[in-house]
């Protein structure tokens, strides 16, 4: 046992004229909530489909609980719950029938009845009122809830969810995130998303995929810390023409970006010694000799969030 629920080595997926994944090396620790991020078309869904045997890799390998996804897919699928990006079911079936039908892939009907599985899971996803209505009349959000329910109906060791909160309203999103957090005790949750706020809220590990390449991977805290260092944001008034070169010369300042406005200029100062910056930065600015006094309108320590890192690593301008 490796301690990893998912491991991929040099995973490649090519379609005619397109390389969707370019040698992916990914490790998802067991009992983690792992957010798999990337812009549209980055290759997230392709990756997830390969893990559950819906697509075959062009090269490289992938293992789930040490089982090869190509040769031991049945063993893998018996331990995995999968939610597709836009879950679809047979429209004539009720939610209860969908869940019963799904559960029978894993256990006998008598076990399902004895365990009261279906009612329990319907309650968890909040579909009690709709349980006996045909799925064809469900809204996108209700289908999504049902999709989450069917993915976990057999209490899998690993949940693979493709955009689980995408079609949900804020309450639905909150509920799904809560479900995912509760599952952490017993399962590993590997999910793709572009809702960065959700990732930061519930995930303990993330990977960022861009154009088929993994550009960042690890615990969220580490990824946030791995950036260029603490950053201070200031808004200044007055003659600041030569201030930049003065500050750049300080040992503990890494870089400075200035955006000049009509009256106020916005400064982003990256530092390599946060303590020193907290103590000295304001003093350096206030005491800098100029013709007119420099006024500090705003001074904040900028907290880097996942969205900024995401934008940075996928090559977008956050401004």
């Amino acid at each position, binding site marked *: 046992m490796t301690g990893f629920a998912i491991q991929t080595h040099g995973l490649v997926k090519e379609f005619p004229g397109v390389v969707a994944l370019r040698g992916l090396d990914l490790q998802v620790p067991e009992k983690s909530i792992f957010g798999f991020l990337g812009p549209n078309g980055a290759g997230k869904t392709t990756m997830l*489909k390969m893990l*559950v*045997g*819906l*697509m*075959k890799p062009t090269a490289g390998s992938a293992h789930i609980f040490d089982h090869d996804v190509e040769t031991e897919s*049945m063993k893998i*699928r*018996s331990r*995995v719950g*999968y939610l*597709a990006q*836009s*879950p*679809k*079911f*047979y429209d004539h079936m009720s939610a209860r029938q969908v869940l019963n039908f*799904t559960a029978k*892939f*894993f256990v006998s009907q008598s076990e399902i009845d004895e365990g009261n599985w279906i009612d329990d899971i319907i309650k968890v996803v909040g579909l009690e009122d709709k349980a006996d209505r045909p799925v064809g009349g469900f809204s996108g959000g209700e289908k999504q809830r049902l999709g989450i329910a*069917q993915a976990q109906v057999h209490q899998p060791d690993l949940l693979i969810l493709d955009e689980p909160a995408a079609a949900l309203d804020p309450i639905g999103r909150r509920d799904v995130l809560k479900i995912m957090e509760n599952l952490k005790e017993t399962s590993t949750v590997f999910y793709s998303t572009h809702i960065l706020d959700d990732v930061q809220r519930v995930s303990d590990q993330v990977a960022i995929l861009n154009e088929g390449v993994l550009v960042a991977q690890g615990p969220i805290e580490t990824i946030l810390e791995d950036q260029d260092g603490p950053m201070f944001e200031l808004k200044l008034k007055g003659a600041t023409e030569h201030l930049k070169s003065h500050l750049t010369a300080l040992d503990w300042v890494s870089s400075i970006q200035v955006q000049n406005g009509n009256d106020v200029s916005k400064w982003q100062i990256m530092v390599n010694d946060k303590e020193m910056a907290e103590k000295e930065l304001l003093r350096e600015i206030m005491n800098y000799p100029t013709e007119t006094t420099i006024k500090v309108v705003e001074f904040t320590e900028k907290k880097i969030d996942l969205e900024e890192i995401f934008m940075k690593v996928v090559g977008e301008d956050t401004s």
Partner: protein
Amino acid sequence: MLIAALQGVGEEIGFLFVIFVGVSPAIGAIIVANNIIVKERTSGTAEWILSKPITRKSFIWAKYLSASLGVIVTAVLIPGVVAYIQINAVTDGVFPLARFLGVLSLAAVNVLVYFAFTFLMGTIFSDTGPVLGASFGFFMIFLSFMPLIPGTENYTISRLIVPQGTSESLALSIFTGENLGFIDLLPLLWAILYVIVFTMLALYKFERVEL
């Protein structure tokens, strides 16, 4: 020849029966089979089912057997039972059941050929347009075009249902109780071979379909 063969059982009923068990169910089979796999793929239900611990072979066999059985029962067996009752009602005595079942079996195999071909096309194309086009093209070749080519009567499936050249259709020969030699049964053997090959190809292709 057709008229002569049907003498004693009622010309109209006999003629309609042969058309009914031969041509119409084949068209029905194409219409039913064209959407089975395509719909599962495009609607996303195949993705849902195949993410569970089930083999693709099991999935495709379940679809194949349930749909083909449905076509045979509704398009061949039930009309056949009705026709048998009608034929006996308008003729003296009882029409030999074995011969009648022989014709129905032939019709079932004929239907299966078109069903299996259309099913195969459904694993190749992801849209019903090309599936229907290819399947009706296949149907037209064997029911309209091949019978016009002399010397092919024992080497195609056309003669199962329609006459070819100077040879009567196998269905009508069984219906009228003609003695048949091995060479007369070749179209049936071809048909069975077609069904097996098309079905195996569909299984092979679906194993490789990416969902």
